[in-house]
């Protein structure tokens, strides 16, 4: 009897083990879901700050919405996020809410293919702002910059596809103790020439003491960020000359078209002057910096082997938490019209605007729970939601009415000046950008030269830039064609909301078609 009972227990255990294996290998979902809806929020901000901020927002949101579970997916940027993004979207397994930026390589077509516009929702007040200073204000107007980047980067000029969580700017972080050792004091940097002179002092100090100290911590990523503001000041006159439409700003498609029409060249004096400035700052980095990434540059700075680290305020939280020394933060000092080397070419100081918001989140148009995903976006960009994000991440808020914590308050002090365009000439298109990166070594270091790099880019430019403008055209058409189907769909539905959506789509489609025809005309006129 006892033997039979033991035998039965053994069978029962085996059965339970088999059932558990079957569940794990075939289902891999929890046996009981505590909440009926799960939404996924994917981004690449794995620095210190944002994951904690987003977690805190999720905790509060789940308290308010017991039906919904929000899962944060922090995917490393660089090469992993773009591949992860595309493969999941193409496979129909994309997260409900996804971060995207126009500079992420090889993803220009993603918004048109996979994201839903938020325009009509943005025109209404955000319900989570009830009882705050932003209560009756349209959601889009509650953002500190009115969503400049999502408007500018929209594949459809009549639509807005994203909302932003934070605000950022580029800053020069300095090791204050090291600066005192080198210069005898903490120097105020008012112009680029002040920086230039300090970098010479660093080199002299390193040679005199034999210490391996660089002026600027170098890496491929951070150098790109440092190069871009230097490309702009001497080129502004050229940009304004090309600006026949009076926008006081050029979109990438216009700079691409301008090159094909012969309106600018890499070997123009203005561009060469900018390339000379780039040589000056890269000379202050340790040799081989192009093989390094952002984290390597940060480590070089944290070890006290570089006076400056240049990157976004998104790294400030990490730097302040990890550094064992006092950090002083500067705006990149502007290249001014009285600069001893390039001054005569400089029209005026380039501005940073009044702060541009970022960390753009998009709604996947194949989301299984679009209403809940949109609702979470509204919460995280409401005054209370964004306050939680800011307090826990120490990243600037994107939303008006949020109190900025003391340690980051000075990040909102912006340099006022002229605007340039959607992107400097190193980033106007995937192909042109790739050629820039591939041949950057021809510009820098002892073997590099401005003339050689400019000549190479002008040799490769026509093909690369034609490819980029063709891609812009193709991406625009990618958006326009399915809109015919959507317009017919909305026309068939009754009600004012359907009429409004139909009219918005018709307007946006006509604008996009106009742009596509302009690009096509340039491509045809400049063929051969």
């Amino acid at each position, binding site marked *: 009897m006892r033997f039979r009972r033991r035998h039965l227990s053994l069978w029962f255990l085996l059965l339970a083990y088999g059932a558990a294996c079957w569940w794990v290998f075939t289902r891999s979902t929890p046996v009981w879901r505590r909440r009926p809806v799960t939404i996924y929020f994917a981004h690449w901000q794995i620095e210190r700050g944002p994951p904690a901020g987003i977690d805190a927002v999720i905790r509060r949101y789940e308290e308010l919405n017991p039906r919904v579970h929000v899962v944060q997916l922090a995917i490393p940027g660089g090469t992993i996020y773009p591949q992860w993004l595309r493969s999941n979207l193409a496979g129909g397994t994309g997260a409900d809410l996804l971060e995207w930026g126009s500079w992420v390589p090889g993803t220009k077509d993603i918004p048109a293919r996979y994201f839903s516009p938020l*325009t009509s929702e943005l025109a209404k007040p955000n319900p989570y702002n009830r009882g705050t200073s932003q209560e009756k204000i349209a959601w889009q107007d509650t953002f*500190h*910059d*009115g969503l*400049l980047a999502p*408007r*500018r980067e*929209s594949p*459809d*000029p*009549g*639509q*807005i596809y994203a909302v932003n969580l934070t605000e950022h700017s580029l800053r020069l972080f300095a090791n204050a103790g090291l600066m005192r050792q080198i210069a005898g004091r903490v120097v105020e940097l008012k112009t680029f020439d002040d920086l230039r002179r300090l970098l010479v002092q660093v080199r002299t100090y390193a040679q005199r003491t034999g210490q391996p100290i660089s002026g600027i911590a170098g890496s491929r990523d951070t150098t790109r960020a440092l190069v871009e503001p230097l490309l702009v000041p001497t080129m502004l006159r050229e940009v304004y000359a090309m600006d*026949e*439409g*009076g*926008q*006081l*700003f050029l979109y990438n498609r216009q700079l691409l078209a301008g090159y094909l029409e012969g309106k600018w060249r890499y070997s123009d004096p203005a561009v060469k002057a900018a390339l000379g400035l780039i040589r000056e700052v890269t000379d202050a980095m340790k040799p081989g910096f192009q093989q390094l990434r952002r984290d390597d540059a940060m480590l070089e700075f944290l070890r006290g082997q570089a006076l400056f680290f240049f990157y976004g305020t998104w790294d400030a939280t990490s730097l302040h938490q990890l550094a064992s020394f006092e950090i002083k933060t500067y705006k990149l000092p502007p290249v001014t019209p009285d600069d001893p080397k390039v001054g005569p070419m400089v029209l005026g100081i380039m*501005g*940073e*605007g*009044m*702060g*541009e918001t970022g960390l753009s989140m998009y709604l996947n*148009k194949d989301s299984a729970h679009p209403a809940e995903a949109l609702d979470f976006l509204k919460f995280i960009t409401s005054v209370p939601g964004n306050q939680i994000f800011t307090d826990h991440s120490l990243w600037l808020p994107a939303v008006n009415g949020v109190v900025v914590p003391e340690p980051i308050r000075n990040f909102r002090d912006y340099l*006022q*000046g*002229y*605007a340039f365009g959607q992107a400097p000439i190193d980033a106007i298109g995937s192909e042109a950008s790739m050629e820039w990166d591939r041949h950057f070594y021809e510009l820098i270091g002892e073997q590099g030269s401005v003339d050689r790099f400019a000549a190479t880019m002008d040799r490769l430019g026509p093909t690369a830039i034609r490819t980029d403008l063709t891609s812009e055209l193709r991406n625009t*058409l990618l958006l*326009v*064609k*399915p809109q*015919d*189907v*959507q317009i*017919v*769909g*909305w*026309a*068939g*539905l*009754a009600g004012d909301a*359907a009429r409004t*959506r139909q*009219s*918005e789509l*018709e*307007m*946006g489609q*006509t*604008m996009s*078609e*106009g742009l596509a*025809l*302009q690009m*096509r*005309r340039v491509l045809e006129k400049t063929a051969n």
Partner: protein
Amino acid sequence: MVACSAGTAGNDWNSLANLRTRDVLRALPEGGGSRPERLAWAAAELGDQPVTEGNLQAAERVLAELAGGDDAIAPEAAYLRARIYQLHRATPDYARAAAIYQELAERWPRSHWAQLGLVKLALLELYLLPGAAKEEDRIATAEKLLARVEEPPLRRDLQLQIGLAGIALRVPIARFLPHLVAAARFGGIGGSAREDILVQIGVLSSRCGEWAQAREFFERYLQEFPRNARAFAVRERLAEVNRHLAPEGGP
């Protein structure tokens, strides 16, 4: 416009509005029975991925047949048919698309689809269709079509396009600026286009000495986009405009 109750379930239109074309094709496996159903099926064929020449030809056949009718479906079908020739085919046939838009506007001049077709026809005339001796003629042809567009939002869209084409075709500013101004005054332009048009009118008005108009649009821009990176340059231009206006008795 096709009412949702006209024989096709609202679900099909809803699926098309959300680009779920596969759902429509699954719901109408035989291509649909009623005329609205057949229109929905043809529209779904246009958007169903991957789009093939075979799909487009099948859709075009159905649309041609529907366009031969005399109900609310007919102009919509004719419009979509023109879109196939203009946009969806791998090798577009702009002349054929233009001919269908013309016929549509003559047969049902008040139909929304004919009116929308006139806007698309104007775009073809502005940039692609042959026959213009000089670029200004393209603007004139589009203006003739504009005179036939009666729906205010579509007039705005076409005026905006005539203005932007004027810039791209490099015709004299005075020839196209009134269209940009009319589009901006009508309102409802969204996204980045809204910021662009306010600055553009300000700058282009300054270039041709229309100082009061320049001031109006620069001030509107600064009111709506005070934090935009372009605000610094706009403030500088506005100060210049005000200097010009001061001797004329302006404030």
